[in-house]
C-alpha cells in the first residue's frame, strides 16, 4: 500500500509548490464531498492531498465594485448564508442550494463542483449563465478563464495538473437583471440533476429582454452555453412564443445519453421545460430588481 | 374419516387428485398417510404446507388433533417480512 500524504498549506505559493514538486499523483482537497467518495471506491488513489481550505484567497468572499470575488473553496452553506450574494445572483445561489443535503453543503464548494466536472454539476450552469470567470493560479502565474470553458468533459477540466482554481468573479450586474437555475430530479432533494437549466437576463426600461445567457446541465458531456436559446429571449418580453422558442432551442441543443438517471428522450423534452420555467423565474426577479 | 383437500399447487404430486378421506388422528398421521399414498408429495409436506383444520390455520403443528369429521385443507406455508 502506498502511503497517502496530507498537506494543508497556508498560502497559494506553498500549495503551488506542492503541486509542482514532481511526479506524485496529487489531488486538491476542498470540500472533499466528491473526492472522498472516489477515494473510498478506489476510483481516485492520490499520493498527496493538498488541502486548500487554509488559504485565505480560496475561502473568502469579497465585493469589488459591484462584482463579487468568491473563493473556490468557500463552502456552499456560507454562500447561501451570505447577506447580499443571493440578492445579486439568486440564480447562482439556486444552483448552490441544490448541491446535496445541508450536510453536504456544509463542506462542498463551487470550485470542487466545477473541478469534479460532472456534466450534472448543479452550480455550473448558473455560473456559466452569469458569465462568471475563474481565476486560476499556476507555476507561470495567474490566468482568467470563462467558467464555460473550464469543464471539458465528464471528469475532465481545462486545468493543468499543477494549477489551482482560486476564485470566481461574478460580474457587476446592470439594473433590471435576474437569473434563475432550475433542475429536474425525481426526488425533491438528494438527487443528481437529470436536467438543469440556468437563465440570466436583463430587461430594458420598457421591460423587454436586452441581454440573456442560457446554460444547460446534464444534457451533454459538460454544461452547455446555449446562445440560440438566449437569442430566443432577446428582444422579447419573455412571454408566450418567446418562451416556446427558448424551450425549443434548449431542447435542440441537447445531446444527452441514456443512463440510470434518465433517458435521452426525457432529457431533451424536459430541458426545454426547465429552461422555460427558469426564464419565468429570472424574469420575475429581474422585474423586482428593477 | 376426515376430509382432506389439497390446495391446487399440490395436484401435480398426486396425479391430479384434489381431495380424499383419511382415517387419521393428527397432522403427523395425515402427512404419513399422504406420503404413503403419493410418494411425490413426501418432500412437500412438513416444510412447505400449513394445515387448515376446521377453518383454523396451523403451521408446524404435527400433533394437532384431527377429528373424525374434520375438514382439513393443505395450503402453502405462510411467513412474511
Amino acid at each position: 500500500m502506498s502511503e497517502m500524504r496530507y498537506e494543508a498549506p497556508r498560502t497559494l505559493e506553498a500549495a503551488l509548490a506542492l503541486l509542482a514538486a514532481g511526479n506524485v499523483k496529487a489531488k486538491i482537497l476542498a470540500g472533499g464531498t466528491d473526492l472522498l467518495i472516489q477515494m473510498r471506491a478506489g476510483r481516485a488513489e492520490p499520493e498527496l492531498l493538498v488541502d486548500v481550505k487554509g488559504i485565505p484567497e480560496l475561502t473568502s468572499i469579497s465585493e469589488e465594485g459591484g462584482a463579487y470575488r468568491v473563493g473556490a473553496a468557500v463552502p456552499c452553506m456560507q454562500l447561501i448564508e451570505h447577506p447580499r450574494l443571493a440578492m445579486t445572483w439568486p440564480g447562482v445561489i439556486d444552483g448552490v442550494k441544490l448541491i446535496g443535503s445541508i450536510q453536504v453543503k456544509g463542506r462542498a464548494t463551487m470550485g470542487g463542483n466545477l473541478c469534479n466536472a460532472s456534466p450534472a454539476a448543479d452550480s455550473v450552469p448558473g455560473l456559466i449563465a452569469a458569465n462568471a470567470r475563474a481565476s486560476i493560479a499556476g507555476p507561470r502565474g495567474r490566468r482568467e478563464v470563462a467558467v464555460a470553458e473550464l469543464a471539458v468533459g465528464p471528469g475532465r477540466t481545462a486545468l493543468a495538473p499543477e494549477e489551482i482554481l482560486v476564485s470566481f468573479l461574478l460580474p457587476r450586474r446592470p439594473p433590471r437583471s435576474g437569473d434563475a437555475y432550475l433542475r429536474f430530479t425525481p426526488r425533491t432533494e438528494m438527487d443528481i440533476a437529470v436536467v438543469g437549466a440556468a437563465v440570466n437576463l436583463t430587461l430594458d426600461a420598457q421591460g423587454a429582454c436586452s441581454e440573456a445567457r442560457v446554460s444547460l446541465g446534464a444534457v451533454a458531456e459538460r454544461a452547455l452555453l446555449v446562445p440560440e436559446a438566449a437569442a430566443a429571449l432577446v428582444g422579447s418580453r419573455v412571454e408566450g412564443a418567446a418562451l416556446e422558442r427558448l424551450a425549443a432551442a434548449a431542447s435542440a441543443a441537447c445531446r444527452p445519453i441514456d443512463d440510470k438517471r434518465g433517458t435521452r428522450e426525457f432529457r431533451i423534452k424536459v430541458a426545454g421545460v426547465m429552461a422555460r420555467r427558469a426564464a419565468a423565474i429570472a424574469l420575475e426577479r429581474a422585474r423586482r430588481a428593477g | 374419516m376426515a376430509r382432506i383437500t389439497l390446495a391446487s399447487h399440490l395436484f401435480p404430486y398426486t396425479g391430479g387428485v384434489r381431495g380424499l378421506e383419511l382415517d387419521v388422528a393428527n397432522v403427523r398421521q395425515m402427512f404419513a398417510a399422504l406420503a404413503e399414498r403419493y410418494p411425490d408429495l413426501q418432500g412437500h409436506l412438513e416444510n412447505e404446507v400449513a394445515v387448515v383444520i376446521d377453518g383454523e390455520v396451523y403451521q408446524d403443528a404435527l400433533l394437532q388433533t384431527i377429528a373424525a369429521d374434520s375438514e382439513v385443507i393443505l395450503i402453502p406455508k405462510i411467513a412474511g417480512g
Partner: protein
Amino acid sequence: MARHHVTATVNGEAVEFLCETQQTLLEVLRDELRLTGTKEGCGTGDCGACSVTVDGRLLCSCLMLGVEAQGKAIRTIEGMAGGEKLHPLQRKFLEHAALQCGVCTPGILIAARSLLESNPDPSEAEVRYWLAGNLCRCTGYQKIVEAVLDAAREMRGA
C-alpha cells in the same frame, strides 16, 4: 505507517488521536475514539446517519478526513444530553414516538438541533427540507417532523 497526530475537542472535551490520511472523521470517532453513537449508513454522504457538527457546521462525518479535524470543535450525539437531562429534542423524540430502529436517530437529532440553532421557528416544510439529507426507513418521517416542531415550540417558550 506514518500517522497524523490530531488534537481537537469533542463535545467540549480535548481529545487527541492518531489517524491515517484516508481515515474519515467518522472512522476516527467510531474506531479511534470509540464514540459509536455516530452511525455509518452509506459512507457516501447520502443518508446523514453520520451527521455531526464541526465548528458549528452540520456535516457528514464520512465526508471529512480525520486529519482535517485539527483544532476543530466537534459535537456528536454523545454530547447532546446535558448532564442528567435529555435535550428537548431527545425528549420530544421519545414522546412523539419519532424513532423506531433508531439507527438514523443520532444523525437526525444532530441535524434537527442544527436547524433550531439557526431557525428557532421553522415551518413544517422547512423541517422536511432541512432533514432531507437524513434518511429514515422506519417512520415515514411524520413523527420526526412533529417532534422537531414540538421541541422548537418548547425551546422558544411558546
